């Protein structure tokens, strides 16, 4: 039976890997997710046949409660709220790993080999930090607490000390596994560490944090796998750990920041930055939707640059209608997606897909950046920092070095924005004052609706 179980686990692990591979193309992605689901299902079924299981009461209760909550959350969540949803699911994964590890300790007792006690400590530490950190990330993204960084003097030092304490206590536990007190204190320290390590991170940096927590939840599962000597946990945990690290890295690169800077830099304070183009405040020319409609009507190619402001205003659907209208007039329309558009990796693509924008109209930054110079109109909606030319030129700007969309190279730049207020990084944008820029002040949804109306009138 043990052999059969392990063979099924091996099949599960293969399904997970193949499923992730199929996620590499939008054509096969759904099939891939289904395969992964199947892998999970067979792993669960074969585990239920385990002869160590004597009582199914708690199992059935747990499965029903968990499935109901999970299904309800998955069905009802708004696509704009996807980052906090993923954060929350991550947190539960981390919590589950920590709970399993501790339960195993309670069950087996203090007599355990060195490798088990070491991975037990790591599983608890990572699992609890993932859980609490995810809850904080959720609260920040959901607006339950301020998105601005919360800092106090000596914060980094305090976090370092906490981690050190946890590791030293871990050492004590490994030396004396019969004493559960060490483990309980480690859990307490991890609870605090999960909070203090995430509160200093600003709302705009949350994509990085979510990716990192994703990676942690995988590592926690892998560590629990070591505790249980269960290879499917180890493989799956490693896959997820790797995935989270890759996404973290991509997000950091897209913001031109190091991971250390994101985690400890506390960027996004109200008085941060502001050095940019403050030379002599040139006048901004304000245009109406009618002016913009005339320019758009005579354009041959348009690139739309959506930012998170678009999603906040719920303007995706009317934007799609707008794009269709232009295409009916024979205008070439494409969307340029910056890697950090939205609140998590790939978020903007999902938001546009929800509005029925076909995915072959969505272009990554590297695919489309050279095309801006041959484009008549670049229409920017709810984006700011990712199009700020200061990132290229101004060495003293906090944005300097961040890869941006070459919106300024288009013949005409249209920017729909509520006001002149700077973006998350707190930096002014010289593009607003460029003579070829048409500023359209207003709510994204209302403005695009007006554009649609005006274009129809022409």
């Amino acid at each position, binding site marked *: 039976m043990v052999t059969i179980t392990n063979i099924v686990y091996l099949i599960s692990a293969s399904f997970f890997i193949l499923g992730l591979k199929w996620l590499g193309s939008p054509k096969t992605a759904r099939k891939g*997710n289904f395969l992964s689901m199947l892998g999970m299902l067979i792993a669960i079924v074969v585990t239920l046949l385990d002869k160590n299981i004597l009582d199914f009461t*708690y199992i059935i209760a747990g499965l029903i409660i968990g499935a109901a909550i999970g299904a309800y959350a998955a069905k009802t969540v708004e696509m704009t709220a996807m980052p906090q949803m993923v954060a929350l699911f991550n947190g539960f994964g981390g919590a589950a790993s920590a709970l399993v590890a501790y*339960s195993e300790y309670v*069950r087996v007792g203090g007599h355990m080999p060195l*490798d088990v006690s070491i991975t037990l400590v790591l599983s608890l530490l990572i699992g609890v930090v993932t859980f609490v950190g995810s809850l904080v990330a959720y609260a920040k993204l959901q607006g339950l607490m301020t998105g601005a960084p919360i800092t106090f003097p000596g914060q980094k030092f305090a976090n370092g000390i906490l981690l050190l304490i946890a590791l030293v206590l871990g050492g004590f536990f490994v030396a004396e596994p019969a004493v559960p007190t060490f483990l309980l204190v480690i859990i307490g320290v991890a609870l605090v560490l999960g909070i203090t390590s995430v509160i200093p991170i600003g709302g705009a940096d949350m994509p990085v944090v979510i990716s990192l927590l994703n990676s942690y939840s995988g590592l926690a599962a892998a560590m629990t796998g070591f505790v249980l000597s269960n290879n499917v946990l180890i493989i799956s*945990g490693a896959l997820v750990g790797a995935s989270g690290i890759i996404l973290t890295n991509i997000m950091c690169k897209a913001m031109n920041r190091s991971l250390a800077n994101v985690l400890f830099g506390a960027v996004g304070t109200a008085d941060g930055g502001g050095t940019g183009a403050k030379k002599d405040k040139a006048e901004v020319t304000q245009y109406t939707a009618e002016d913009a409609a005339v320019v758009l009507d005579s354009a041959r190619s348009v690139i739309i640059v959506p930012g998170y402001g678009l999603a906040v205003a719920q303007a995706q659907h009317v934007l799609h209608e707008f794009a269709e209208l232009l295409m009916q007039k024979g205008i070439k329309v494409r969307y340029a997606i910056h890697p950090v558009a939205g609140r998590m990796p790939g978020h903007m693509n999902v938001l546009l*897909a929800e509005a029925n924008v076909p*995915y072959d109209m969505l272009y990554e930054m590297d695919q489309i950046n050279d095309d801006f110079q041959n484009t008549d109109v670049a229409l920017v909606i709810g984006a700011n920092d990712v199009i700020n030319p200061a990132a290229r030129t101004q060495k003293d700007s906090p944005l300097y070095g961040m890869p941006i969309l070459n919106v300024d190279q288009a013949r005409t730049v249209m920017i729909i924005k509520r006001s002149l207020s700077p973006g998350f990084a707190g930096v002014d944008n010289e593009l607003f004052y460029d003579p070829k820029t048409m500023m359209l002040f207003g709510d994204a949804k209302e403005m695009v609706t007006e554009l649609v109306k005006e274009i129809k009138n022409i």
Partner: protein
Amino acid sequence: MEGILVSLYIFVLAIFVGFEVITKVPPLLHTPLMSGSNAISGITIVGALISAGAGHNQLAKILGLLAVITATINVVGGYMVTDRMLEMFKKDKSEQKR
């Protein structure tokens, strides 16, 4: 000590496989990738099932129950929301009319 070494081999090799497979996923699909891989990390549910059902230690079983609940939320929620998102990714209009 033999067992832990084999597990360590598996762990390291799986990380390499993960890097290879996941670097090929385009940014277009990064959100579904994240929620989908998130669901995979819910594999810890197999450990949770054993904790909740095996042995006679009440504390271990209650911890197991909590683990089953949290892991199931992670698995069911993760896969369902991923499917919901992937369903929305359509190539052109002909596919949109369903």
